[in-house]
Every structure is written in C-alpha cells, then in structure tokens.
C-alpha cells in the first residue's frame, strides 16, 4: 500500500494536478486577502461582510442566498451549478483549442478571433435559413458545423504564415484577432440579423431561438421559431439554469481530442513536431503540414465553442466587437495552462473558471462588494496559472531531493539498476563484446 502511495506521489500527473491546485488555492487566498482589506477599509462594509465575502469566494457555488434573518445559507444550488456548466462550455472548447496548439509547440493566442468567426457564421446560418426551409435540428447541425469550419479556416491563416513564411504565430494570431473583430462588426452592420423586435436589445443580434418566418407575406423574426441546443434533460437536473446539451458535446469533444492526441498517428506526428520540429523533419514528418493542421484543429475547437454558446438559444451577441475581443477566447489560455494542456483536465479547469464567474455574481448579489473584485481574483488566478509551471518545477526538485534521501534506504528488488548492480552487468556485457 505504502509503495503505491509513493509511486502515486512521484507520478508526473499527480504533480501536475498538485501544482494546479496550489495555484488555485494561492489565487483564492490572495482574493480573500483583497476582500478582507477592502472590507476593513470601506465604510459600508466591515469585518463581518469581509468574512461573508471570503466564504463566498471559496464556496460561492454552494450559496443559496440569505434566510430571513440575513444569514448566508448554503446547500446544493442547482441554478448555480447549471449555469456554471453552461458557461463552462465555450471555455472548455477554447481551452482545448489553446492546449492542442500548445502540445504542438504553438501558442494560439488567436482563439478570440477564431471564436468570433465561429460566432459570425453560426449566427448567419442559424438566422439566415428560413425556419420553414429545413427542420430545426438540421439547421442547428449546419450552423454548428459552419462555426467549426469558419474557426478552422481562420486558424489556418497564422498556421500557413508560420510554416511557409516563418512568421511568429503569436503576431499573426493577434492581427487575425482584430481582423475578425472588425470583419464581424462590418458583416452584422449590413445584415438583417440585428434585433429590431425587442427595443432594449438594439446592438444585439437575435437569439437563435428566433427564426426567420413568413408572417402575412413578410419575412420577420419570431421568437421560439428558430433553433436551440437540446436540453437533453439537463434542465430537469438543474432547474432554473441555462444549461443545455452543449456541455455534453464539449465533454465528448474533449474525449475525442484526448484520443486524437494520445492514441493516433496524427496526434503522434503533431506532438513530435511540437516537441522537436527538427527531429520530426529528420524523421520525414512533414512539419509544415502539421503546423497548419494543428492551427486548423485549434481554430475548429474555438469555432465549436462559439457555435455551442450561440446556439444555446438564450444568448445574445453584442455585435460591435471592433473595440473588444471576446473574453471566452483569451480565457482559453488560463484554462489550458491550469490543466497543463491535458484535454481531460481542461473540462475541469473550464468548469472552475466559469465557477469563478458564478462566485462573482453571488458576491455582487449577496454582499455590498462590487463585481469587479471577482475580476481581480480571476486575474490573479489567471496570473498564477502561468505560475503553475514554476510551482511544478519546485515540486519536482523537492521530490528529487526526497528521492535522493530515500534511494539508499529503498530496497533494490524492484530497481535492479542500482549503481552496483549495473556495474556488474556492464562488466559481463563488456566481456561478451570483447
């Protein structure tokens, strides 16, 4: 038993998870200190509010509001959990996008652009095809696939530029981000998809639950006539939340990416190019093709995230994107980093990042803290997610120190290559060769 525990601690994976957890805890702790300091120095807050704030930061997901006397109540909150899963969907996919690129040695900072292009085409297909022309699920599928395709094509651009012109993909990605932002604004500006039915929603695109429908001979958008992702019973599980089947699709895609990267020859090639482009070339692997392919897959994943978010049917897209890029795209980077680029890990870190959003909402709703403090906490954790590599290195060196101490004491039956043993072996083998 003991031995197993030791080997578990020495496992690379365990250390990775540990490093990520440490960064998360440090991030939350820093956030708590911040909440405490703000609480103590604000006139409308105090130590009591600060204590509430700190508890909410750690356990916000399980907050169920306040009771009559104004004490915070705790328990399973289906609405929060459901919303967390809903918001996690795009984050998981952009996280996968960044991690696939990372594994192949590329930094995909172009996820926001790919995400926007996915959004644009998904909305255009979902809202552009009249509801009467095709059955809803078919439109949904077309819109979903077109979002993936658009993201893939947009991701190809930095890949092509990198492999054939040797221009750094980070530069190309940043530029394609802003190209996408402006392209999308320009496209929707001239389109008929802008919401004119609900007055307060000017500046937004119709939800995909609106469908292009002929009413009295005129084409108008009617709510409930469009497409939206099937709930698959999840709304029963998490009543009151926005959750839908998208999260299951995201998890399936994550499993698919895991299989692709670790079980297939394509994944092998991509990783070989990523870890050592020279060695891959030496072995006759087409490194240029693989760079483009890797960026295309990364783009497709971002596009899929955008498509699933748009197609939920209850989301609205603010189309004047030329001034800002979608946070879902950039947040894919910390999601991937915290997960140490493991596709399965991304599912969990994606959920964690969206949980922080929920925590922020709870903090604003239940206390006098404003929502920006959660943004600070999120950014601290984002910062520390990059730090998780450093923490992992520290863990590694500690483990090695310990290993050194333990080595002489450890019995040698399961490690025949102890110095003395190998000496003897080498003498024998040498004798044979001589």
């Amino acid at each position, binding site marked *: 038993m003991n031995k197993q525990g030791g080997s578990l601690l020495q496992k690379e994976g365990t250390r990775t998870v540990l490093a990520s957890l440490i960064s998360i805890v440090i991030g939350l702790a820093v956030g708590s200190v911040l909440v405490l300091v703000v609480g103590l120095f604000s006139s409308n807050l105090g130590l009591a509010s600060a204590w509430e704030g700190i508890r909410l930061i750690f356990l916000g997901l399980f907050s169920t509001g306040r009771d009559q006397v104004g004490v915070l109540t705790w328990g399973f909150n289906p609405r929060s959990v459901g919303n967390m899963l809903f918001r996690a969907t795009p984050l998981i996919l952009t996280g996968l996008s960044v991690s696939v690129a990372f594994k192949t040695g590329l930094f995909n900072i172009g996820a926001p652009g790919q995400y926007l292009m996915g959004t644009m085409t998904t909305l255009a297909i979902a809202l552009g095809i009249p509801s009467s022309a095709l059955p809803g699920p078919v439109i949904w599928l077309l819109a979903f696939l077109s979002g993936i395709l658009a993201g893939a094509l947009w991701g190809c651009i930095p890949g092509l530029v990198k492999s054939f012109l040797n221009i750094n993909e980070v530069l190309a990605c940043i530029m394609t981000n802003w190209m996408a932002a402006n392209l999308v604004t320009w496209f929707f500006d001239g389109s008929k998809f802008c919401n004119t039915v609900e007055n307060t929603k000017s500046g937004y695109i119709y939800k995909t639950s609106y469908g292009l429908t002929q009413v009295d001979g005129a084409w108008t958008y009617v709510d409930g006539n469009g497409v939206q992702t099937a709930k698959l019973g999840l709304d029963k599980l998490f009543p009151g939340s926005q959750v839908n089947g998208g999260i299951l699709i995201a998890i399936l895609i994550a499993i698919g990416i895991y299989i692709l990267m670790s*079980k*297939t*020859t*394509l994944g*092998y*090639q991509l*990783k*070989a190019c990523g*870890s*050592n482009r*020279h*060695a*891959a*070339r*030496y*072995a*006759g*692997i087409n490194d240029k093709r693989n760079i483009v392919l890797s960026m295309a897959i990364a783009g497709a994943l971002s596009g899929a995230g955008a498509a699933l978010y748009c197609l939920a049917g209850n989301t609205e897209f603010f189309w004047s994107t030329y001034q800002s890029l979608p946070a879902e795209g950039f947040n894919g980077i910390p999601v991937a980093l915290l997960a140490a680029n493991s596709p399965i890990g991304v599912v969990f870190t994606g959920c964690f990042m969206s949980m922080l959003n929920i925590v922020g909402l709870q903090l604003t709703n239940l206390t006098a803290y404003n929502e920006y403090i959660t943004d600070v906490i999120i950014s601290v954790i984002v910062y520390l997610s990059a730090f998780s590599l450093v923490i992992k290195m520290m863990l590694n*060196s500690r483990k*090695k*120190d310990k*290993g*050194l101490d333990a080595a002489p004491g450890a019995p040698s039956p399961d490690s025949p*290559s102890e*110095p003395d043993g*190998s*000496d003897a072996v*080498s*003498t024998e*083998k*040498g*004798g044979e*060769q*001589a």
Partner: protein
Amino acid sequence: MRTMESENIIEMLHITKEFPGIIANDDITLQLRRGEIHALLGENGAGKSTLMSVLFGLYQPEKGVIKKNGQEVKINNPNDATALGIGMVHQHFKLIEVFTVLDNIILGAETTKMGFLQKKEARAKVEALSERYGLKVDLDAKVEDITVGMQQRVEILKMLYRDNEILIFDEPTAVLTPQEIDELMATMKEFAKEGKSILFISHKLNEIMAVSDRVTVLRKGKYIGTVDAKDTDKQSLSNMMVGRPVQLEVTKKPASPGEPVLDVKGFCVPARGHKRNAVNEVTFQARAGEILCIAGIDGNGQTELVYGLTGLEKSSGGTVTLCGEDISHASIRQRGGNMSHIPEDRHKHGLVLDFTLEQNMVLQRFNEKRFQTAGFINQGAVREYAEQLIEQYDVRSGQGPITVARSMSGGNQQKAIIAREVDREKPLIVAVQPTRGLDVGAIEYIHSQLVAERDKGRAVLLISLELDEVMSLSDRILVMYEGEIVGELDPKQTTVQELGLYMAGAKRMDMTKKEGEGA
C-alpha cells in the same frame, strides 16, 4: 612576504558536490603540484567538469576544502578564482565574436587612466606575451573572422594577460587539427617549464600520455586514483577510467567492397546566409560493405553535405543516386526508404527528448502497418518492438520503454538512436560523429556495431572529426576542406600527419583527374 612554500600549489581536499538526484563529486581529492601538467581523466559524467567548476567558483561544494599554497581559500565566484591566479579555457570559448582579439583579451581586466582605456599599454603587454610563447594572433581581427585554433590562442592569452599561474584547459583539443594539437602541447610544456601549473581535462589517452606528468582518474563521481604518467600506459588508464578492461583498437576484417550504393556527382549545397556553396562540386561513391569516412576539421562542409544527402537541406546542384534511384530532389521520407541516418546532433535531430524511449524508437516507422491500424497507434506492437531493441542493443534506462528520452544518459541516448537506425536495415547508413562526447565503453560498442553492419554488406558513410576514429574504423578516407574533397587516402597507408596536412588544406590531390581515371 613569502610564506611556507608547499609542494602543492592547489589542493582540493575531500570535495563533495551534490545535485538533486546525483552526487557529481563524491569525496574527491586533487593535488596540483607547482609546475606540473596534471591530467584529469574520466568518462562523460565522471564529474570532471563539476570539479573544475568548483575550483573556478561556479559551484560551491557541500563538503571539502580548497587550499592554495597550503592556506585554505574560499572561492565564491570566478572573480575570486581570477584573484587567486586561476584561469580557465572553457571547452566552448567565451569570446565576444564582434569584438577584436585585443578587446577580448583585455575585457574585464582593462588598464585605464581616469576612466579612459589605455589600449597601447595593453597591446604592448599582449604582444610581448604572444611573442614569448609563440602564440600567434592577429590583435586587430574580429574573433568571428579567425580560425578556431586562433580563438583558442586568444583564450590562452586571456589567462596569461591576467598573470594566472594555474591554468585549466577543458578538453582543449576537441576542435583542433593534429598540427594545432602538437603546437598546443608544446605551449603547455613551455608553461610548465616556467613554473605555471596546468590542469588538463581530457578523455583522449594519447594526449594525456604525451604531455602530462601525473593523471588523476575519476569514475562516476568517485576518485579512483592518481598515477605518474611515466609509470602507466594507455590500457591501464582506460581500465581505471571505465572500471573494466576495454578494447582500444577496432578489430575488423579487411573490407570487401561491392557495388556502389551511393553515387554523388557534382553535388553542391548552399551555405546558410552566404552566397557561396558550403559543399562545392563534390563527387564520390560509397560501396556496399565498406566504411567510407569523410574526415576534416569541423565546419568544412561536412554537416551541409549530410544535410544535402539526407534531404534536410535543399541541394543547389549535382545529382545523388541511391541504390540506382535518383534522389536529388526526393523528400526526406522517400530518401529514408534506403538510408538510415545517425545524426550529428542527437538532441536536435536524433530524438524528441520529451517523448518516451518507445515513441522515439518508431520515429520514422510509426506509419508502418505493423505499428498502426487505421490511424490508431498499435501501442502493444510499439512496446514490444522497443523492448526488443532495448534488449538487443543493450540500451539502459530507468524505466525501460517508457523512460523519457531526456532523462537518459548521453551514451544511452546515442545507443537508442543507433539501435533505431541500424534496425531499419537500410543499404546505406550515414553516421555523423556517432561517438561524439561518449565514453570509451560506448565508443567501443558503437564501433563494433558499425563494423558489423559493414560486414552485413551495408555501405557506411562515416563523418568524423576524431582522427583516431577515422584511422581505426574506416576502410577509405575522403578529406573535406572548404567544401571540397581534397584527397582520398587509404588508412592503412597514410599517417595521421599526412591526413592532418590535407585537413588543414596544406596538401591536395587533383580529384578531377582521379575521377577521370575511374570513369
């Protein structure tokens, strides 16, 4: 003024230096006498460099003391070492390429007057030193424009300029021609005669026997012993170094060359960043059942020639025919069909260091039917194949097939590459410096593998900078100088000296005439 004059100028007593997971120096004692050349001999990873880094102040030992003239000293950084008169010529020179030779020599020890450089005084001093020891350098040339041999003389002058009396040479001969090595040896003896003390790190037994007075041998971080050079011989030194009897000479039957496997005609490869060709109009044939060696000083186009032949670099002219097939413009994978390649840089090209050993073993072959089904890697087959290679070629690693390549020793990484390449059973093996940086035991093994492949009727194209290797392993030698083949020699009939003259460009054959005769 003068304290007790002890016999030992530097004493390193019971030095222990640990790194996480490894004891690099375990209770090592080294005593350097005044005016002697003391060789430090050991295989790669024996702890030579660590010990010297401790002496030079780059590492702090956990245990042990360093004494100079019998007085204990503390060396916390290289500045302390310099102040104690310790100077070091590193294996990889520490020169600023765009500075002139003079600027490099005085850098860090400039003579100044009111903050202004006094280059005239410095120049006079350097010139005097250069004159006195016959260390010819061009003081106004930029370092990037001078030869490697001259760069080394600059490094030596740097030590002399600082009036160092303890000189450390870390593998100084690796980059030199035989003639340059002879000169260096003479210079070192001259220094010793003047009372300077020299520590000479090497694993080349010939050189150690030629210059050193005493030899200290390290093995796996442990002190093995110190012997007088005149009381020992190469064989017993190598036994001490490796810990078992080793075979220094390659034993092989005479070659029986068959049909040409590789036919290279008028082959040119462009140089990086230059207009001229790095490989210029090279023509030769490699025949089945022979080891053809391309000798030459590093940087004379050997690397580019291999890049051109293997497809890593595009050629700019000429034809390459492999097994009767024109591969001048073939892809790397197509060429790999008849050629295996043991690359010069095992970390850059040979291995994906973050992959496991088994993943590295199928680097070229993962697409073969045996290792994949419909795009899915056949894990079991890969594991089985890796285990078979590990067993057959005696590749040692911590966890067998699932060891991460990065964690393996250099020798075993190279063995893994050789296992992979040899086992692909291609008619041509291109081996580029296959034993570079390896210890005697691994070299012995790799040489025997290459000879075995030759005897199976494969053509081996060996590119080597080590003269001993060239002379003992090859059946035919081509010498490359400035991108051209300047001589074809028979190792049985030539001498190291003659080979050196070709390598340095002092002698050349009319190769076109030779080809004419052949055709």
